[in-house]
């Protein structure tokens, strides 16, 4: 399909805008500024979807509720717990103080639709999660789930630094809606996560499988979703092939069920 100069210019600007939106997402997500992400750069319709290995949220309302109301409350609780152990944390921004989980993006694969109304983006994130104060020894990511009943408040000396690698693949669709490029679909495929220099994500998992043939990395769904998972598996030594889930986008004409990261959700409603 031959595009005019104006159409090519529109698509070239679209590539940069999609790159910028992906990166903007990485940073605001890293500090749990979820409202600043979903208010600003998302399409707010029923066919907005956000997928992960645990399932797919469908509709802006479900996405917004899970990411903002639930996530931000959790962040506030954790910050106040930290503030009790480290008083200088009290009064800080409960969303962004302390912990960071940044999905650092390597080069993006972006294709623009010939109709100029959408763009598709695939990426690898070599992410990290870190915190100067971390979490009490034995708790936090990788630790056992909290037991029943009220939790004993942790003391400052219980806390240890936290640093982990967290790699994922991303598939994302964007639409040109009301003069702006907006996210409509995001699908996250977690690959592995491990603490820096204290774990071997491949060997440790293999040993867990050896010890218990029924061992699974599946942790269930932590929030309300429309399409429950598992939608993908994390890396496993015994997996037969690389588990990419999604292909990189190919040149295409329009966003539809053949060219999407969320089949069945490609009308702009």
């Amino acid at each position, binding site marked *: 399909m031959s595009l005019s*100069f*104006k159409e090519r*210019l*529109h698509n*070239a*600007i679209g590539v*940069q805008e999609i790159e*910028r939106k992906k*990166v*903007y997402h*990485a*940073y*605001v997500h*890293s*500090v749990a*500024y979820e409202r*600043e992400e979903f208010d600003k750069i998302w399409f707010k319709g029923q066919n907005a979807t956000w997928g992960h290995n645990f399932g797919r949220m469908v509709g802006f309302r479900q996405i917004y509720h899970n990411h903002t109301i639930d996530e931000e409350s959790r962040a506030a609780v954790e910050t106040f717990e930290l503030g009790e*152990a*480290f*008083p*200088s*944390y009290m009064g*800080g*921004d409960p969303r*962004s*103080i*302390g*912990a*960071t989980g*940044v999905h*650092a*993006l*390597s080069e993006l694969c972006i294709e623009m639709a010939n109709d100029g109304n959408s763009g598709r983006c695939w990426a690898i994130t*070599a992410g*990290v999660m*870190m*915190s*100067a*104060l*971390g979490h009490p*020894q034995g708790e936090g990511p990788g630790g056992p789930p909290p037991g029943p009943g009220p939790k004993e408040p942790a003391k*400052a*000396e*219980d*806390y*240890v*630094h*936290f*640093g982990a690698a967290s790699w994922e693949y991303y598939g994302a669709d964007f639409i040109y809606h*009301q*003069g*702006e490029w907006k996210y409509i679909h995001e699908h996250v495929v977690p690959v592995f996560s491990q*603490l*820096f*220099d*204290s774990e071997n994500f491949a060997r440790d998992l293999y040993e867990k499988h050896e010890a218990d043939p029924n061992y699974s990395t599946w942790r269930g769904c932590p929030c309300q979703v429309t399409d429950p998972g598992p939608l993908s598996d994390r890396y496993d030594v015994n997996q037969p092939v690389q588990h990419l889930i999604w292909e990189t986008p190919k040149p295409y004409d329009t966003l539809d069920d053949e060219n999407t990261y969320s089949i069945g959700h490609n009308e702009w409603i």
Partner: protein
Amino acid sequence: MAKQFFTDDELVERLWDYENVKQVMAKHFYCYAGDLRRQELTDLWVKLPQNRRFASLGVNTGFYTGMDDISNYYVVQLNELRYEQLKPYCDADPAIGLNKFNLGRGILNNNAAYSPLLYIAEDGKTARYMCYVQGVRAVGNPDGTADCRFMFGLVYADLLKEKGEWKIWHLIITNDHAIPAGKDYAEYPMWKDEFGTTGQNGPLLGHVDPNNSYTRDELGTPTVERTVYDPFFGWQYLYQDMPHPYYSFNPNYSYGPEGCMGMPYYERERRDY
């Protein structure tokens, strides 16, 4: 299509500006990795006298301002450090000369930049840039030991178009976590907070980690000393610090010493009056 704000020619120029700003910053990381800092200051930084006077380089503990101070810290002091780091090799093996040709022996200092976020001002004269660094740093010794760390942090920059070329004007290289290779980070000593509360393995020296040779040796004494980034609090002010769409350069919101980096948001609000 929405109504156009820019002409087609302006849009093409802005597309090109976006790629050129990324290119200039990529060259900065190349120079940083190769200790080619004199080349960086000469080729990539502002050249006009009025801009050189107000150029700045920020680190966690403050800003070096003006090209003289920047050059002294960024090039001369690093050169002296590299001679100190070379001397043990020369002492261990007289065949290794203590000269510029051997500088950098046993050194790896590489900042890999991810996720560049940048905006060109609407007036097209300046740009604001931020990226995340996942770097590595190793300082070797002649006995085969080495201090190896994975280095993390954010890099910010104001760039300026001088005679049609993008140049670095204000640069901030923050140092976040410096995680030692081969050691569980959880075993690493904790910082203490301003109330003196310490985590395990205290006592420690405030937020400056005595075991982190990066902060000990390389932050120096900035021209303007103030907290630009404190890893104890993490990315608390990231949203306020990161680039956002803007019309024109405003020193109050720059990445220079007049800007707001490291300030609580309520102190930033006062600057508007």
